[in-house]
């Protein structure tokens, strides 16, 4: 992306493309169709990895926020913010794809199921995180307030994950580590794991690009400030 793309960006971009291509091949050409859910089950191979990326991204917000409050290093705040933005995009997609899957399987686009409700709350929490960042008067204040929301908001992530274990729910049981009745056919599991890898690489690629943009915004602000100071000095003379 852009002329300043480093070798790491190019390698990451190329490997994301290759693994994503393999994932699509596995989903649409290789893995057998589910006997009960038919084609709608193939949504699962993107839905679950996107949920994984959303959790990973919000964990990034949590870590970035804690380290920022501790060290006051703006790079960690940048990392937290960018990770949060990507997390919001993927959480939105998780809800959308879940809803589209639910219509033919459950007969409804949406129910106030614990998993769905806690995920919607997660999206709202991190949208407010981004809004707080956007509307705070000063950068340092935005970073500080955002960090607090980023840390507190992360509490919802384990709640979303555990919601299908803690409460009665319509949502399918976890496919990995979900007890004796759960589990996947080996081809389905392999496809899912490759897709998780593809989306993890994609997250890293997006994160690097978003952080580069944030860094450029910071650089631009600094340059504008310096020029304004020069102008002010000139007029003072």
């Amino acid at each position, binding site marked *: *992306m*852009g*002329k*300043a793309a480093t070798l790491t960006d190019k390698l990451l971009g190329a490997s994301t493309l290759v693994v994503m291509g393999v994932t699509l091949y596995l989903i649409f050409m290789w893995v057998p169709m589910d006997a009960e*859910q*038919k*084609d*709608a089950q*193939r*949504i699962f191979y*993107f*839905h679950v990895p*996107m949920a994984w990326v959303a959790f990973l991204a919000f964990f990034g917000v949590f870590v970035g926020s804690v380290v920022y409050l501790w060290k006051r290093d703006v790079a960690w705040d940048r990392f937290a913010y960018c990770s949060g933005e990507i997390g919001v*995009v993927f959480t*939105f*997609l998780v809800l*959308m*794809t879940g809803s*589209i*899957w639910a*219509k*033919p399987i459950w007969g409804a686009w949406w129910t106030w199921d614990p998993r769905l409700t806690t995920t919607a709350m997660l999206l709202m929490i991190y949208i407010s995180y981004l809004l707080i960042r956007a509307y705070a008067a000063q950068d340092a204040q935005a970073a500080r307030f955002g960090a607090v929301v980023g840390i507190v908001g992360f509490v919802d992530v384990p709640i979303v994950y555990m919601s299908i274990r803690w409460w009665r729910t319509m949502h399918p049981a976890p496919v990995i580590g979900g007890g004796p009745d759960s589990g996947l056919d080996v081809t389905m599991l392999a496809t899912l794991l490759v897709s998780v890898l593809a989306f993890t690489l994609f997250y890293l690629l*997006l994160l690097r*690009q*978003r952080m*580069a*943009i944030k860094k*450029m*915004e910071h*650089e*631009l602000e600094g*340059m*504008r400030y*310096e*020029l304004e100071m*020069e102008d002010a000095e000139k007029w003072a*003379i």
Partner: protein
Amino acid sequence: MGNLTYLFMAYTIIWVVLFVYIAGLYRAQRQLRRDIDALKDLSRAREEDKPRIQVGSRRFPSS
């Protein structure tokens, strides 16, 4: 609607949203690079003009 329609709908939404997000990132990056280059040019031009500007001078540096 058949199950295939829902599958098509889900994957279309995923790619459209991701495409819009990536396009937004690309556009922002290009705009920022343009702004930074413009400010660097301005700053360079000021640096070059600096020695010729004398305090109290009523003349433009280039005249």
